[in-house]
């Protein structure tokens, strides 16, 4: 397992990970339910995260639930969903001040029991979630999906993914689908909730200054989990044949064009070339000294922001930027030119060393934030990769140019998405 982190198997498919550290003034708890990402289920999971913010058996009114959290010294409770490849994770998290800094010495027990109340005893009417809460959240969830167009860059990114993975589970939006949401009701959702409790793999994280045995015991006492009947989720498709790139342009009434280019890398995260691929990405578009930033922004003044990023689970690489509408073709060519030049080896030892340093620095700083710690280790658990951080750093240090070129060899452009201006309507 990971250094400093202890694992306790609470029951089959429920694991508790604990980290004792004096670094933070707060304690953090996270409960993660693992689900397969599918169009049928995504809307329901998103709705669960929303409705389970509204009330519990003991605190049926939302107002009273949050007043209780205020009284726990502003304990921050959140429930939300995230997409990890073709998995959708329902996360319940709580962060609260450590008892060393406040008057209330039993805040840990109180907060754990509050989180248990939220997860295991949500407010319901018979065998259904409260109709009022359900309808309000359903309306808001639909609004959230409609409001996707408000953030143009994020919207363009989503659209590029939808185009690139048409018909695959990965194209499913983790916030759900309006048509499916409209069909849902409080009863169906409550049935789904029961099913999620029974059939998910559950991982619990605790990061605290306090004695581990004490809080592991506390979790066992307060949490009511049964043995989980969960099936492992299959690895997503991640190898794709070479195709000619497809170009998708959509129009909106906007001031600046948004460009997203999707490349396939065909390097799985299990492969020894995956880390060299991350180094490639860092040199290409990882920061202000990257090839894309230096050439397309600093040299050509064509944009303000430009970056590239690797999609771990689907072996993809994306480049995104906001540009003038009439510069689209120039920028697409320049980005491709930068990718091709890098594949041909037009980067030096210094670029390579800088990129490695930058990645290693990010790994080292994970331990500065409880949230980063939880997300990092959770992602490692999902990918069955139990190597120590020190070992990963060593692997990065050993990467040479040849390995980077080998990792980049199979990269090809698959989809170019452009959000264009509407322009004058010609009748």
């Amino acid at each position, binding site marked *: 397992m990971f250094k400093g982190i202890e694992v306790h198997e609470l029951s089959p498919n429920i694991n508790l990970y604990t980290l004792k550290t004096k670094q933070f003034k707060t304690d953090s708890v996270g409960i993660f339910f693992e689900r397969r990402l599918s169009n049928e289920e995504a809307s329901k999971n998103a709705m669960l995260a929303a409705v389970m913010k509204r009330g519990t058996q003991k605190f049926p009114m939302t107002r009273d639930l949050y007043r209780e959290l*205020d009284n726990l010294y502003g304990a921050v409770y959140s429930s939300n969903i995230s997409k990890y490849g073709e998995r959708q994770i329902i996360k319940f998290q709580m962060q609260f001040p450590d008892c060393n800094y*406040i008057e209330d010495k039993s805040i840990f027990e109180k907060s754990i029991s509050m989180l248990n109340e939220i997860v295991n005893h949500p407010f319901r009417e018979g065998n259904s979630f409260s109709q009022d809460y359900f309808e309000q959240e359903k309306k808001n969830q639909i609004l959230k999906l409609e409001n996707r167009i408000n953030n143009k860059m994020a919207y363009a990114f989503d659209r590029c993914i939808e185009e690139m993975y048409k018909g695959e589970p990965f194209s499913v939006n983790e916030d759900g689908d309006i048509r499916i949401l409209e069909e849902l009701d409080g009863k169906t959702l409550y049935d789904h909730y029961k099913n999620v409790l029974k059939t998910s793999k559950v991982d619990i994280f605790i990061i605290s200054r306090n004695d581990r045995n004490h809080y592991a015991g506390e979790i066992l006492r307060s949490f009511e989990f049964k043995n989980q009947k969960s099936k492992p989720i299959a690895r997503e498709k991640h190898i794709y044949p070479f195709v000619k790139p497809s170009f998708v342009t959509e129009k909106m009434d906007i*001031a600046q064009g948004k460009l997203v280019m999707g490349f396939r890398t065909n390097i799985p995260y299990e492969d020894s070339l995956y880390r060299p691929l991350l180094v490639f990405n860092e040199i290409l578009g990882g920061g202000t000294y990257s090839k894309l930033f230096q050439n397309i922004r600093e040299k050509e*003044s064509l944009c*303000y*922001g430009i970056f590239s990023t690797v999609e771990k689970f689907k072996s993809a690489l994306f480049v995104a930027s906001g540009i003038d509408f009439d510069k689209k073709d120039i920028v697409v060519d320049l980005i491709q030119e930068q990718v091709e030049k890098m594949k041909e080896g037009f980067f030096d030892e210094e670029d390579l060393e800088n990129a490695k340093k930058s990645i290693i620095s990010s790994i080292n700083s994970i331990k500065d934030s409880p949230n980063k710690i939880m997300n990092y280790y959770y992602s490692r658990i999902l990918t069955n990769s139990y190597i120590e951080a020190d070992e990963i750093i060593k692997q990065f240090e050993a990467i040479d140019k040849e390995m980077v070129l080998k990792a980049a060899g199979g990269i090809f452009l698959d989809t170019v998405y452009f959000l264009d201006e509407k322009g004058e309507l010609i009748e």
Partner: protein
Amino acid sequence: MNKTSKIDIPHLDEKVYKHTTEEGLEIHIMEKKGFSKKYAFFGTRYGSIDNSFVADGKYHDMPHGIAHFLEHKVFEEEKGDVFEIFSKSGAKSNAYTSHDSTNYLFSCTDRFYKNLETLIDFVQKLNIDKNSVDKEKGIIKQEIMMYEDNPEWRAYINTLKLMYPEHPVHIDIAGTVESIKEIDKERLETCYRTFYSPNNMIVFLIGDIDRFKAIDVIKKTITQDFKKRNSKIERIVHEDLGPVDKEIHRESLSIASPIFYMGIKCHQDFEAESDILKKEIFVDIFLNSMLGKGSNLYNDLYEKGMIGKNFGYDYNYGSAYGYILIGGESEKPEETYDILKAKFVEFLGKDPKREDFDRIKKKLKGESLIYLNSLDYIANAYVSAHHKGIDFFNYFKELEKFDYETYASMQKNYRIEGKTVLSVVYPNSGEVS
């Protein structure tokens, strides 16, 4: 001068070392043992509101967006790019301009003192020519266009325009595509020499740092040229105290549902730090008890669909300005605004409930502990407060002392009539084709 003092914040288990050099440059260091990342900020009290000033006897009225433009250019070096130098040492560098300040920063886990030297060195120099100034205009134009498409930003900046038509806080920090055309080498150099001087700047360091070594590096890196820059700055303050003239602004963008901001003008009319902080704590408690998720009003508005998931509120202030912002998505923004206005007036007339006061105070205390986990947050908040003349940790000290009676009397005397504005961005059609 030229000595170090130590400030303890015992109930939070934190301490800050403050050192002032002979030239008046303040260096503040917060030691956080056990953290991997280290942050360094080098900031000047010079932001978008400092467009008009008298320096060395001459009056200047600068084009909008010049402080932000200057921030971009300070990054340029004779020998190449500052980004490159930091990148070689495994550091991430950045800079930002606000209404009242410009700050340069880096973060790293390794080679901190080498990076600190780079930071102190490059901010003390400006190397520009006509070509490089012109090239930057293309990049900044794209930055401005990016904000044009951002509905929250549009709604926010329009609120400021309604509340402060005279005070320069209403000016877009980056300026406009038109105004940046007026920016040239000479103007940039004038602003640089005026505001980038020791007595107008601060260095703030946080992380697992050896403070003696850090102070030593800074002192060795300060140039004679920088030390000599101590021009007397006279900022022209545009008082804008009256009631609001135009109350509502509407515009439209390609979005799906309306976004609104309600602004409440609350001018800071006191000098003493403790009074400014008391007002801030009052506003924090007031907003939380009125609009927090534990309030009746929030739940009522949410259940009726008048406000959505991203509803929020905030308070901000600086030299001769201050405002509360409340907003988010709403299907009926103008109706929501009317309800909020009426409820504020009703609430302010009443005696506050003691249990609400106690609950919110607990919440604020707990939240501050959560924030103190993040070096990034502390660094930004500390430097931002410093540029406003506030010691960041005094907020927590004042909060400990702040009692119900003080709160109740402040609430009774607070008025919002004639101070509220509404800015809405409506959908124009929003569809994608």
